[in-house]
């Protein structure tokens, strides 16, 4: 790290050298011995070799270190040649020469020896790369690099960092770097460093304060405890918000899974045990879409929204025409028949596609989290699912309230005979309603593919929860489903830290049973004549 200044000019002249023919033989290339030093089984020796590479100022260092970090720097077993693997899936990998970076065809896994690293070395490498990132022009990249350095500063980095802080124009980067230095100073037992850390919600800060609070030096321990107390206070609020978010997010998943059922079961009165498998079909559609559009997971995901709806709706129509229409008014038989359908669909997927889970890639904009403050960040995929659930709900409300189909559905469910005598084709409405409910299940599947496994068992995990939500919310009431889903999610997440995940689930179930005893029609019972129908 001390040689950073020497390394930087090298980086700058990279542009000059780029494009010059690599006439140098591998043996004469100064890079060859640098890489050879990495090829040792001892991690301590590797750490030294990394240090030497950084100090060498070779303009290729950065790419070497990145390749090493990603496990892609490898050596041919039979000769001295080092290569960088470009794509490491399957048995044959395209490679590039590690010295010239020219593509060098394909090599088999058998021929290559990987230069392995462990977590400690990974940390060293990331630190080295973060330090380099502090000199780039992009302020965001500098900020991320500074954040990565929190808790990772060592003695050799102190002086270069001080120089960087001097020259840094971005206040946020300056603050983070001072904090990183303060963490290091506190770790060395410097009481004054605590002043710089006060009020920070960062995990690394809390971690170092916690260990300082246990120190033998009473002055240091007291100061650290006082700083911690202030931070804990701030954290309380954070934790409350976090739990609420977790609850709403779990609730949104429940709402999504249940809202289709609220239509087929709640409005039509059909107990459809294959509802979970319709969700599964939606998830598999997402997977299929990603197979059709390789390399564009985002576009595929957006396209799967209509596709998932269509596939599940068509499957729904098939179930309605094939099974349910013959069992009208016989709920027990419908239950058994649709349960059979669900088993058939599961095994179909197992036989036709695979019993293994399928990989659904999350697009870039769905991974990671948004930071509200340093102690609270909201995971993006769940945020999107929460938004999506509300959108689907709003859309469904719109269909039921504002369209001809919605009107007819409401008419048929309120009084079938009367509706028919008014010229509504009840059978057609049945099909459309069931297709709508199934299609929404497909939408749930598209969303769930971003949260959980896409496999044949996906639907089973949600069917019980879905019925629970619909019954709790009040059969036939979409608002009830929304409120029930969200509140069950929050209750579950509030209980979980206290009693554990297993007991929380049990308590929620018992609560619903007791609630249904008291109010058999759920949270929002239907009123008037429709309730009797």
């Amino acid at each position, binding site marked *: 790290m001390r040689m950073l200044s020497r390394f930087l000019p090298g980086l700058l002249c990279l542009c000059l050298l780029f494009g010059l023919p690599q006439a140098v033989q591998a043996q004469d290339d100064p890079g060859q011995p640098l890489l050879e030093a990495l090829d040792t089984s001892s991690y301590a020796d590797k750490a030294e070799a990394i240090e030497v590479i950084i100090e060498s100022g070779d303009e290729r260092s950065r790419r070497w270190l990145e390749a090493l970090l990603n*496990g892609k720097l490898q050596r041919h077993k039979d000769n001295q040649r080092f290569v960088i693997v470009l794509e*490491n*899936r*399957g*048995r044959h990998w395209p490679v590039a020469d590690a010295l010239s970076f020219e593509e060098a065809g394909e090599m088999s896994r*058998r021929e290559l020896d*990987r230069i*392995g*690293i*462990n*977590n*400690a070395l*990974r*940390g060293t490498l*990331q630190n080295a790369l973060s330090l380099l990132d502090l000199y780039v022009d992009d302020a965001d990249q500098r900020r991320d690099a500074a954040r990565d350095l929190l808790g990772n500063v060592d003695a050799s980095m102190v002086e270069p960092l001080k120089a960087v802080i001097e020259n840094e124009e971005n206040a946020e980067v300056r603050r983070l770097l001072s904090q990183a230095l303060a963490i290091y100073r506190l770790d060395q037992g410097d009481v004054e460093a605590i002043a710089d850390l006060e009020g920070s919600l960062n*995990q690394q800060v*809390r*971690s*170092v304060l*916690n*260990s*300082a*609070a*246990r120190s033998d030096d009473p002055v240091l321990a007291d100061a650290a405890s006082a700083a911690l107390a202030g931070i804990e206070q701030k954290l309380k609020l954070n934790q409350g918000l976090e*739990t609420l978010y*977790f609850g709403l*997010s*779990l609730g949104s*998943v429940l709402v999504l899974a249940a809202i289709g059922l609220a239509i087929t079961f709640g409005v039509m009165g059909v107990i459809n045990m294959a509802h979970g498998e319709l969700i599964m079909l939606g998830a598999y559609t997402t997977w299929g879409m990603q197979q059709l559009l390789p390399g564009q997971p985002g576009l595929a995901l957006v396209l799967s929204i209509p596709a998932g709806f269509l596939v599940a709706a068509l499957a729904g129509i098939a179930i309605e025409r094939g099974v349910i229409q013959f069992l009208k008014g016989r709920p027990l038989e419908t239950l058994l028949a649709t349960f059979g359908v669900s088993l058939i669909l599961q*095994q179909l997927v*197992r036989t036709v596609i695979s*019993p*293994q*889970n*399928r*990989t659904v890639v*999350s697009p870039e904009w769905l*991974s*990671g*989290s948004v930071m509200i403050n340093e102690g609270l*960040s909201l*995971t*993006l*995929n*769940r945020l999107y699912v929460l938004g999506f659930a509300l959108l689907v709900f709003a859309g469904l409300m719109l269909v039921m309230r504002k369209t001809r189909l919605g009107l007819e559905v409401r008419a048929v469910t309120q009084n079938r005979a009367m509706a028919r005598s008014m010229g509504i084709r009840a059978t057609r409405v049945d099909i459309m309603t069931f297709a709508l409910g199934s299609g929404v299940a497909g939408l749930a599947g598209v969303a769930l593919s971003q*949260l*959980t*496994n*896409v*496999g*044949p*068992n996906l639907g*089973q995990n949600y069917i019980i929860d879905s019925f629970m939500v619909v019954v709790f919310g009040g059969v036939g009431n979409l608002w009830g489903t929304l409120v029930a889903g969200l509140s069950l999610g929050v209750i579950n*997440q509030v209980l*979980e*830290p206290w009693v*554990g*995940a*297993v007991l929380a*689930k049990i308590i929620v179930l018992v609560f619903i049973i007791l609630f249904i005893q008291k109010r058999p029609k759920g949270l929002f019972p239907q009123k008037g004549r429709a309730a009797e129908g």
Partner: protein
Amino acid sequence: MITLQRQPHARYLAAALVSAAVMGASSQALAQQDDPIKVGILHSLSGTMAISETVLKDTVEMLIEQQNDAGGLLGRELEAVVVDPASDWPLFAEKARELLAQEEVDVIFGNWTSVSRKSVLPVVEELNGLLFYPVQYEGEESSENVFYTGAAPNQQAIPAVDYLMNEVGVERWVLAGTDYVYPRTTNKILDAYLKSHGVSDDDIMINYTPFGHSDWQNIVSEIKQFGNEGKKTAVVSTINGDANVPFYRELGNQGVNAADIPVVAFSVGEQELSGIDTGPLVGHLAAWNYFMSVDTDANYDFIDAWIEHTGDEMAVTNDPMEAHYIGFNMWAEAVRKAETTDVDAVKDAIIGVTVPNLTGGYAAMMPNHHITKPVLIGEIQDNGQFSIVWQTPSTVAGDAWSDYLEGSRDLISDWRKPMECGNYNVVEGSCGGGEAETE
């Protein structure tokens, strides 16, 4: 239930008597010369466990094919008898009975979950069958008729914890598992082990979740809190099957990276990782006795054969597959040694049999029906493979009875004559030292 189970049994008994009466002992021996050797495969092909078990069925089929291409065994062909216990534990027992009594298979390769093994155990013992069980498990068992080719806790969990404690310097521990027998027993052993190494109660957090748990927000957040106490923290995960994918996703999204809080898993292998984008998981750990990335020619040959068998260029191999590979070769070797497939003869012959494993060494069958294995620690890579960062200097022999549990400490298992006992109490000097307390 009872009548259901008794009926077929009575029928098989009658059938067996009739067949014994019809065929003389000599004609049966003659028949043996030409009949194929039947190999039973008892793995779920439908239901929740199909995700893990179908590849094991394919593995045994591949091994049988290879053996037949090499001329069979004792000059006889091998024939696979595949049944589907459909992830239904009682059905495992029925299917095992079908294999042994009706199909009269010479050996069974099967089971994944401990509960299915426990369900099959009395049947295999009653009908004197041979069962090769290929999955890592909680130990505390040794049956005369079962050969445990997966890891016992001392071949996986304990070395992994040693690695974290000594090489990584971990001081605080989260033991997270799915709520059933394997995680509970393993965590109990680990808890006792950690405490015997001076870890205080405050530095251990134990957490159980239901099967197929998919909402990990709170637990991951708790783990983050727990790791903020200024001591190096690690998670030891016995989370089973499907629940791992959302767990790892949540870890990635909440920014828990391996440098801060490494997660070492005992049930996550290449198969499970093939269902997720492993980019955010790089550096998290797994402890197994085999990884697909092992750099030996034997392993590359095995992978090539597997890819050819499945016809899928991206097919992955995993630890239980290697266990079947070892178990199958051990059984074949024992049959050759005993010159018969007779269960009692094979059972005696197999103890001490040594065959190559896929990691460049040898596996030996111990008298307690467990095998010797190297223990490897691997870090997850971005391509769904593991990079081996540490391994035990030599192989470790499986210990049926843990040294860290009250009640099992004094037990040993030795199926050689004259002891022939699966739970010999060395303190009382008697066989049948009782069951260890395992919840």
